[in-house]
């Protein structure tokens, strides 16, 4: 968590703006304004995900752009019901994403299994497969809610001393399957 004196200051002059601050803060400024999410949906929430990427919500203005490959994505949005057959694929996509990476569980199904919780084939929540950062309620959630979820990821980015964390640190082994559900 950055202390206030570590924050990036932006000084504006005529026709020019200069950002001054610790490297961590500058890096986070870049990171949070270029959060690329994976173009990936498992069920009907994906329709709302597409809508969020469309012109009415226009998440491009925050730098949220979809990427069709996990190797260039920062955010994995679990959009829809997850079946056991899909679980290993989702885990693989997550593992292919480079650090730092974030996961949004979008809608009731990705949160807990939702309507299909009692079904034999539906995973009872995305957090049983991958660690989840943001849980969004709704069935499906509105594009506004998803935008807020992405903005919460921005806040998370802002507060993380990622550079200090990543520097000289041996990468931890990936969380053992399955990820444990967090307090929420």
């Amino acid at each position, binding site marked *: 968590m950055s202390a206030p004196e570590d924050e990036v200051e932006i000084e504006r002059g005529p026709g020019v703006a200069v950002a001054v601050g610790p490297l961590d803060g500058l890096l986070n400024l870049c990171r949070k304004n270029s959060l690329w999410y994976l173009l990936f949906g498992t069920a009907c929430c994906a329709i709302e995900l597409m809508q969020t990427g469309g012109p009415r919500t226009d998440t491009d203005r925050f730098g949220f752009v979809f990427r069709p490959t996990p190797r260039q994505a920062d955010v994995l949005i679990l959009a829809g019901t997850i079946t056991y057959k899909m679980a290993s694929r989702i885990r693989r996509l997550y593992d292919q994403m480079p650090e730092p990476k974030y996961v949004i569980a979008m809608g009731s199904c990705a949160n*807990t299994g939702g309507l299909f919780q009692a079904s034999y084939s539906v995973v009872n929540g995305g957090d049983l497969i991958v660690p989840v950062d943001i849980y969004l309620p709704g069935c499906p959630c509105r594009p506004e809610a998803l935008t807020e979820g992405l903005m919460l990821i921005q806040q998370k980015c802002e507060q993380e001393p990622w550079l200090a964390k990543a520097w000289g640190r041996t990468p931890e082994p990936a969380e053992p399957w399955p990820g444990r559900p967090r307090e929420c």
Partner: protein
Amino acid sequence: MKEIRDALAERLGTEIEWHEDLAGDPFAVVPPGKWLEACRAARDDERLSFDFLRNQTGTDVPADEVIEVVVHLFSYKHRHAFVMKTRVSRTDPVADSLVPVWPAANWYEREIYDLLGVRFTGHPDLRRLLLPEDWVGHPLRKDYARPESYQGIPTTRPGKEDR
């Protein structure tokens, strides 16, 4: 309906059970040994000409200790439809495959095998259709119990008291 009944009875004799009084579509129950023959007759007989397998499905009936395999047939020539069933044992469900009669039965039978566990003799490629290949059990059976976990993923959500 009477023509269908007469034609099928002529081909297969008295072994067919008729149900016309119940709510819903009338149907015939064919013994499993005559299943393939009955379906072939339904397709080839001029009066029937069921050239289209609309749907094929299965039902688990634990009360009678049977699994029903149901075909919904339609004839483009005569514009009529019909339902036929066969009943196989629940403990050892084996039925004749209808792929030689209607190739469309291929995936239907894979689905029935997947979800109810009926084994179709003569099927060219009897694998699971929807569920993963390492799945245990057949979940549309009435006595199917959900296992504790699948590949290490718990199948129930930890309750608040467990956290």
